[in-house]
């Protein structure tokens, strides 16, 4: 299944792109997504430290992804 992953701020600069498309297996979780991204993009924090949002909601690493989900790696926020 196809999952789009958006990257922001420092992660976007590390990756050199703001968007990746991953091909994951049905039943894969946010943890699998985080491992796939860190394998593709050297220089990111370890997979188990990544904060991930799915369809605009923060999700824990057990969350099961569905085909077409929009995910985002959320670096430490610093608004205000």
């Amino acid at each position, binding site marked *: 299944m196809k999952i789009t992953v*958006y990257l*922001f*701020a*420092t992660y976007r*600069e590390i990756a050199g792109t703001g968007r990746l498309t991953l091909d994951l297996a049905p039943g894969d979780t946010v*943890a699998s997504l985080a491992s796939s991204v860190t394998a593709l993009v050297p220089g990111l*924090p370890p997979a*188990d*430290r990544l*904060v*991930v*949002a799915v369809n*605009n*909601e*923060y*999700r*824990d*690493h057990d969350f099961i992804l569905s085909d077409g989900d929009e995910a*985002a790696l*959320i*670096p*430490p*926020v*610093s*608004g*205000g």
Partner: protein
Amino acid sequence: MIEITHDELNAAEVEARVRHPGAGAIVVFVGATRDNTAGRKVLALEYEAYRPMADEQLERVASEMQERWDLTGVAIAHRLGRLDIGEASLVVAVSSAHRKEAFDACHFSVDRIKQIVPIWKKEYFEGGEVWVGSQADFDPIGVRP
């Protein structure tokens, strides 16, 4: 009322949104771009957001304020893009019948924004730039394993 914009923020306009006949207090917080960080001179700042998630999380902050305190109005405006030193990056306006609620809710909102809203700040120095944010402290709504 929530707003994320590339336009200059006007604190008086944000404050006007929370005026209410039953309000005896209006608290307005303005976050401004500072010219130094940890002893280093900052030349300019840039804000980036993940939208529409940032809008939704800002709405969440406003809802939490309304749930926790008896308020007559809440308005939050956050600026994006490149800002010069001394510009407003955030304006929060809160009104309530009595001052304690508005003060407490306003204080809470700024802490909460810095905890959960996907907006990032980059500081530009002479000869360098850095995205602000601490990996060690970042655990929005306890999602990290």
